[in-house]
């Protein structure tokens, strides 16, 4: 049974959603159970895939057994990179499933069944994106996760959520359509839809404007969907006004998986030599990322309420990943992929904590953190772990991703990027310690010996219950576990990148684009 795992992981949430669709109308209570069991099973399967891929290195599964000639059927390919992303998505999904029952009643008006169907379909889309080895199938999965994202975010009680989701829908459709166009151009140029197939044909005759236009279209489309700074205007409103549960499900995953898609396009489909063979215009992209990092950090500094601040931090983190990926050396790419995992858990921790603290309110002014360490000590402790991750202090994964990214930056000699990373870490420190100060000592400075405000009865952020705390502490624990496991994780990533021909340092002079190292189609 185990050889079906690559497709099995996508089918688990898919069948879960369908079961909820059938049974949910009559027995709404069955849906949380299906979601929890489904995501739990998904975590186990993802771990098994990761464990096997760490040994074998790469695992292809042909749906419908159409193997020869390559490109007829749809191939699901799992290697070191997407096995890790798969596990991260599965664990985040499970934690949100654990978090949802307690939180659901008030936020999603009165349609819990529809929430679970959409949530499981969102997970199906994300697993599908991560696992697929076919460029067009990737578009279909992007659309599934996008549609469910729009619905989940538009379901909320706040009227502004729907306007924000409308803009998100427009921008998301433009992004997905650009990606679709890019795949069309690639199909026109190579006659193949299978990623490995495109790679072999592209490696044979790289110099053509059609491939260049295809690459530009795909990149612009993906940057739009992952909210890279100039194109990310839609993100802050959507996740601020959207219902907290939907934001906790979508924020940590959707942007990160899109970054994974960009990495997959650069490494597997177009190939490292093709992307970085040409002139130095990858430097320009890293400078774009630098702008994204700094702009995100400054917008977060200016934000007055918690969720908008966290959204601006997401924009900044996307800048980390895009910058790391485009540094044209293996360390930068390792940092980018590692940051996908780390940042998913950090963002999840912060958004879960924001969900618990803010309750139904969309706007959670920073002053309302008054004495929060006393009112909700457990929630604030988990929030602190996420915050330390964002600042990048050692035991957490945030430190190690900065560790790889700065090393990549130094090796590429891109000091602007290294500087941006450091400045944004400092700004993060200011942001979060500003909150800690208010949370411990209250917003108005008291007299000598002032011990923080007296305990204020919870306005409407309900005291954290069992499910919330379990999810919160799972996420916070994962932030540290991914940090301590950075050696093993970066090992897996490095081996996967090596197989895909990612050089250690940016080759000063590139060998002419001869058919490069034996590609990995066995």
């Amino acid at each position: 049974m185990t050889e079906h795992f690559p497709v099995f992981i996508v089918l688990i949430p898919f069948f879960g959603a369908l079961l909820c669709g059938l049974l949910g109308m009559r027995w709404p209570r069955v849906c949380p159970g299906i979601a929890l069991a489904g995501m739990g099973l998904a975590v186990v399967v993802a771990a098994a895939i990761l464990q096997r891929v760490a040994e074998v290195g790469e695992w292809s599964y042909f749906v419908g057994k159409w193997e020869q000639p390559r490109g007829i059927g749809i191939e699901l390919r799992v290697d070191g990179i997407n096995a890790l992303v798969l596990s991260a998505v599965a664990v985040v999904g499970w934690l949100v499933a654990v978090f949802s029952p307690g939180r659901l009643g008030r936020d999603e008006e009165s349609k819990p069944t529809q929430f679970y169907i959409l949530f499981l379909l969102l997970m199906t889309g994300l697993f599908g994106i991560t696992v697929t080895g076919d460029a067009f199938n990737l578009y279909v999965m992007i659309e599934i996760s996008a549609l469910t994202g729009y619905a989940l975010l538009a379901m909320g009680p706040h009227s502004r959520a729907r306007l924000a989701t409308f803009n998100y829908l427009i921008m998301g459709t433009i992004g997905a359509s650009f990606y679709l166009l890019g795949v069309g151009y690639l199909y026109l140029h190579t006659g193949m839809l299978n990623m490995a197939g495109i790679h072999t044909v592209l490696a044979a005759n790289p110099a053509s404007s059609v491939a260049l236009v295809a690459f530009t279209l795909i990149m612009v489309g993906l940057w739009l969907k992952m909210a890279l700074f100039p194109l990310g205007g839609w993100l802050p409103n959507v996740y601020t006004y959207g219902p907290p549960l939907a934001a906790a499900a979508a924020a940590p995953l959707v942007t990160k998986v899109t970054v994974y898609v960009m990495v997959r396009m650069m490494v597997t489909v177009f190939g490292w030599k093709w992307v970085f063979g040409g002139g130095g215009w990858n430097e320009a992209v890293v400078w774009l990322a630098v702008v994204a990092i700094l702009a995100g950090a400054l917008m977060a500094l200016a934000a007055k309420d918690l969720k908008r601040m966290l959204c601006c931090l997401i924009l900044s983190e996307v800048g980390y990943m895009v910058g790391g990926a485009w540094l044209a050396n293996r360390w930068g790419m390792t940092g980018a992929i590692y940051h996908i995992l780390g940042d998913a858990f950090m963002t999840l921790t912060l958004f879960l904590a924001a969900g618990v603290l803010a309750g139904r309110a969309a706007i959670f002014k920073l002053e309302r953190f008054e004495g929060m360490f006393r009112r909700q000590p457990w929630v604030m402790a988990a929030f602190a772990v996420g915050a330390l991750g964002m600042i990048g202090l050692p035991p957490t994964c945030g430190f190690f991703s900065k560790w790889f990214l700065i090393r990549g930056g130094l090796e590429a000699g891109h000091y602007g990027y290294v500087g941006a990373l450091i400045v944004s870490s400092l700004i993060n420190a200011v942001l979060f310690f500003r909150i800690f100060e208010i949370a411990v000592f209250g917003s108005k400075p008291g007299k000598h010996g002032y011990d923080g405000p007296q305990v204020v009865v919870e306005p409407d952020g309900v005291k954290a219950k069992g499910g919330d705390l379990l999810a919160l502490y799972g996420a916070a624990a994962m932030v540290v576990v991914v940090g301590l496991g950075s050696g093993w994780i970066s090992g897996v990533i490095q081996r996967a990148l090596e197989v895909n021909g990612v050089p250690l340092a940016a080759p000063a002079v590139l060998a002419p684009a001869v058919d490069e190292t034996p590609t990995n189609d066995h």
Partner: protein
Amino acid sequence: MRAFGLIIVLLTGGLLLWGVRDFPLFGAADSPANGGVVTAYYLQHTMQDARVPNAVTTVLADYRSYDTMFETAVIFTAGIAIFAILRVFDDRGGRRLRKSQDAPVKGDQYRIIVGTTSRLLIAPIQLFALYVLVHGHHSPGGGFQGGVIIGASFLLLAVARNLQTSLDRFPERRFLAMGAGGVLIYAGTGLLCMLLGRNFLDYGALQAVLPATGPEMARSHGIFAVEIGVAVTVSASMFAVYAMLASRGRLKDGL
């Protein structure tokens, strides 16, 4: 804002036009896409592999059936999404019409003509839809087209009479269940192939279940089963979308 939009449009347009320069000539038979190995295999092996002359149906439901399964999931998602966004359960506002009586609607005098023609047309439409669904193997058609026509027949009823009459024949609980059921038929067939030992959605495995059929004919029947699943979901979702949008989510006094 307008100037900014214009600049972006001209920029992208220029880039795309510059890309057209290297395109293979329109309609060229030896272009990488048309002359490629993949296309040749599809056209040459559609009969050999699946006994289905219509190459599009074979590619749609067999070679790339994983894609089509999630395409059906997209339609199901659309139905659920619109239900989640619009559906309102409280009964304030909107009066519930008498059960399938003709409501006194303005422009009543045309009611007879529209009512009778629609009553005459709906049955043939649904019959034709089943033909389109079944005949997908041999002529352009298949699950999506058949499903949409069935959905359209219910829409015709809703437009000709009122939403309540078509809701009586296709109530909310049923079209939600059918939405999920259709995709379950599709994915269930694929799962059955997996349980029978072959890869997911490899219909050759169905020969063990179907009496006296070789692997190729099993593939053809597999395609047909999948098309039915698609038709079920598409019809249910199309009608659900219309019902939700027309009645602003109250499913009562709609368009």
